[in-house]
């Protein structure tokens, strides 16, 4: 039941004192006429309402969450505690610099650590999410070419396996998007890349490991081809959790990158945000970075880069998310950060190997932190789709893998276990996956009906889009 349906006129909570000054109201011409319809509930009723909503939600803490490309690792408690310190939460973003030395230290310190982990020279914490980081990075590329009066570069190359935000961000930055086909091995088709590379190319956007979970061994050749034609290389950090301490984007030839602190650095996803998408770059781009950078040794201060692209959002980014990520980096440190990546890769390979006799892998080779299965054959044989298997998992308390992505694999399920899952959890999940495969063969109808144990069954999305009902009608 919606909170509005529980509302009763006259109920509520006693929250604010009476005014200790004379009441001042706006003139009639500016006074609100339309009455408010906010909920009126007692505190107890409110509390129950939200407990009920929480029960109808599934987080990492509710069970295994192998959502490919999203790195649903455990969200440590200490991070939350640290981001709740009044010394951070009660700080106004426009306080004088000498009163926010702690905040500047946080920003400066995480910049150093993230630059070291990624092989970059400078980093801005301002972008609020991955897509926001992509947009920022592309504007850096644009500013770089413009500063060299190299204005014929109108294209951004994006592999056809890329996440939808890549082309969308390139378009927002005013670029024409050229899709580069993948080679049969899932990597970038080098010949096609050579054909596309020219003096009209501003840059290439790439993840490595790529979106099928494989490390592209031609990476140095790829970034060389782009550099030779005068373009820059953009690294989408969505998959960084596979390679920390092993490979650094900066050493692979990337000039600008974004990270997702809400994936790789353990900050909670919050049901879809807030995230944080810092953007790092090599020295030659650092003058164009947005917002302010922290400078100074003893006394820290904020300095706007000389040829900054401007502001991407207000203030200095999702600061409290950054506090959580720094807490994580401090906890894991020099040894723990690589250990996390190595175990993410181990867990993924373990699961892949224990499933591949039943579920065909899109690419049957050593994977990185995630792998992609194709259910095309199963669907042909039994009518059971990737979606059906996904919905079947729900009844076993497992969050499904990413479905139907990347687009280059038919009936794709992309599995990313992360390093924070135990062997038993993986074994249990493997058993469930195997059970569902058998069910697909023996009783497909049952799977078409799944899920049956959830608060609602499959929802009519077509109806929702055709007859949009987007708010409660009072």
């Amino acid at each position, binding site marked *: 039941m*919606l*909170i509005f349906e529980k509302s009763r006129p006259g109920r*509520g*909570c006693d*929250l*604010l004192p009476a005014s*200790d*000054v004379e009441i001042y*109201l706006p003139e009639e011409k500016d006074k609100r006429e339309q009455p408010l319809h*906010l*909920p*009126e509930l007692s505190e107890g009723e409110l*509390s129950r309402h939200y407990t009920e*909503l*929480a029960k109808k939600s599934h987080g990492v*803490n509710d069970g295994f969450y192998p959502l490919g490309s999203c790195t649903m690792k455990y969200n440590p408690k*200490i991070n939350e505690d*640290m981001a709740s310190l009044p*010394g*951070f939460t*009660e700080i*106004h*973003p426009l306080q004088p610099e000498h009163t926010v030395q702690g905040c500047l230290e946080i920003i400066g310190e995480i910049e150093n650590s993230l630059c*070291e982990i990624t092989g970059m020279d400078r980093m801005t914490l301002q972008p*609020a999410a991955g*897509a926001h980081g992509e947009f920022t990075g*592309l*504007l850096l590329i644009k500013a770089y070419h413009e500063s060299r009066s190299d204005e014929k570069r109108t294209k951004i190359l994006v592999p056809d396996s890329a996440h*939808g935000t890549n082309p969308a*961000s390139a378009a927002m930055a005013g670029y024409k998007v050229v899709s580069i086909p993948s080679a049969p091995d899932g990597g970038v088709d080098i010949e096609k890349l050579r054909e596309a590379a020219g003096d009209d190319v501003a840059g290439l956007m790439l993840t490595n490991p790529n979106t099928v979970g494989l490390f592209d061994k031609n990476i*140095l050749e790829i970034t060389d081809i782009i550099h030779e034609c005068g373009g820059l290389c953009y690294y989408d950090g969505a998959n960084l959790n596979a390679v920390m301490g*092993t490979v650094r984007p900066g050493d692979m030839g990337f000039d600008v990158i974004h990270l997702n602190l809400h994936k790789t650095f353990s900050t909670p996803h*919050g*049901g879809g*945000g*807030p995230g944080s998408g810092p953007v790092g770059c090599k020295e030659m781009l650092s003058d164009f970075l947005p917002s302010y950078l922290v400078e100074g040794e003893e006394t820290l201060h904020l300095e706007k880069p000389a040829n900054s*692209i401007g502001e*991407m959002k*207000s*203030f200095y980014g999702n600061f409290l998310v950054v506090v959580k990520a720094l*807490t994580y980096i*401090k*906890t*894991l*440190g*020099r040894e*723990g*950060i690589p*250990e996390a990546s190595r*175990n993410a890769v*181990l867990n993924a390979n373990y699961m892949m190997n224990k499933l591949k006799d039943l579920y065909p892998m899109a690419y049957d080779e050593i994977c990185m932190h995630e792998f992609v299965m194709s259910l095309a054959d199963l669907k042909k044989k039994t009518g059971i789709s990737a979606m059906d298997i996904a919905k079947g998992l729900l009844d076993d308390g497992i969050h499904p893998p990413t479905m139907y992505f990347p687009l280059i694999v038919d009936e794709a399920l992309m599995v990313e276990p992360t390093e924070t*899952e135990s062997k038993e959890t993986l074994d249990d999940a493997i058993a469930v996956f195997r059970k569902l495969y058998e069910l697909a063969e023996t009783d497909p109808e049952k799977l078409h009906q799944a899920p049956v144990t959830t*608060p609602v*069954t*499959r929802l*009519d999305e077509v109806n929702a*889009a055709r007859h*949009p*009902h987007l*708010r409660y009608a009072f």
Partner: protein
Amino acid sequence: MGSYVPNTLEERKKMLQEIGYSSIEDLFAHIPEEVKLKGELNIPNGKSEFEVRREMEQIAEKNQVFKTIFRGAGAYRHFIPAMVKNVTSKENLLTAYTPYQAEISQGILQSIFEYQTMICDLTGMDVSNASVYDGATAAAEGVAMCQERKKHKALISGTVPPYVLEVVETYCFGNGMELEVIPEKDGLTDKEYLKEHIDAQTACVYIQHPNYYGNLEDAEEIGKIAHEVGAKYVMGVNPISLGVIKTPAEYGADVAVGEGQPLGLSLGFGGPYLGFMASKEAMMRKLPGRIVGETVDHNGKTGYVLTLQAREQHIRREKASSNICSNQALCALAVGVYLATMGNEGVRQAAILSMSKAHYFAEKLEEIGLTVCNQAEFFHEFVTRSEVDSDKILRALEEEGILGGYPLDEHHILWCCTEVNTKEEMDQAVHILREVQGC
């Protein structure tokens, strides 16, 4: 060193053996040697929870927490009911991803549907999205969504906060929208200039209300000027003000956006905040970002899903209305809880108290020789002019643990009061400043 990897070294070895490898290195063997990192990462060693806590607390202590704040300028200290933190700490909600799997995400989806309803109610608009990054990006997206095939000009008021203008400029760098700033006149949007410069190519007019200086604009008139030439009217509004001030819908806006931070989010050195975006029904399909809709399941039971996704990047790729791929879901939850807990009376009270206290404080500051520059009606922010240096005024307050207003220049300060500022605090500030002013 802390670690969140549960498997012991023994267990890892066993897992490797089971799948036919002898060490984890085997799994990285195919990565070309020339790109591999030589040696270790040069970052500090990992630490125990005890040590990390101590270190972080020491850093936090280097910040000054002001007991009293008279500074707004885009980020506001308001009262936050205990319910907000309690709900946003619930792990099922905190640790969930985007609600793509609707069957196990009904709680989050419903909370967004409720949020959308409350934003529509506050603003008087028909449709709200699930939120964007913050107020400034909401403004930028609000301007961008008005672009049409033959309308590529946006007129934006010079009375919006400078950082909002900068973000709109950044977003327009690539999207083909041409920006023109309407100059400020006496703290308000220059309507004469607007009338002269608006034309058939104008996609939209954007103002903020109350504006950067706290003033209420002639918002209805500006809307009429926009609509006369067929331009859209986008208003950035302070959500608390809507407890007592006319809604953007009542002023005639087509799109309403704003910074949601005042609705239950802490100052947090600037984030995470939330940008709300709402529009009239006619512009529903131009709204960027996530939207939740109501539907039914196979058994006819009511449920909620992400909807109208044909606008979004994962379907449309480079043709999407925006690249945004997330919302500030947990912040939207906080806003929903805040509005539900405060209720009609609480929100109205917060608005009236903020406005009343600002007027009391302004009057008291005038009594000790500062000049209040606002000639128009103001809400909870106002600008003073003093012969005394802004710096000197603010330092005197800072010494007593008070964060004064935001210095606009050597002699002008932008002050803010909210319901949390007591008469006692204001009188104390006036007392300190009486001496500084030398009267």
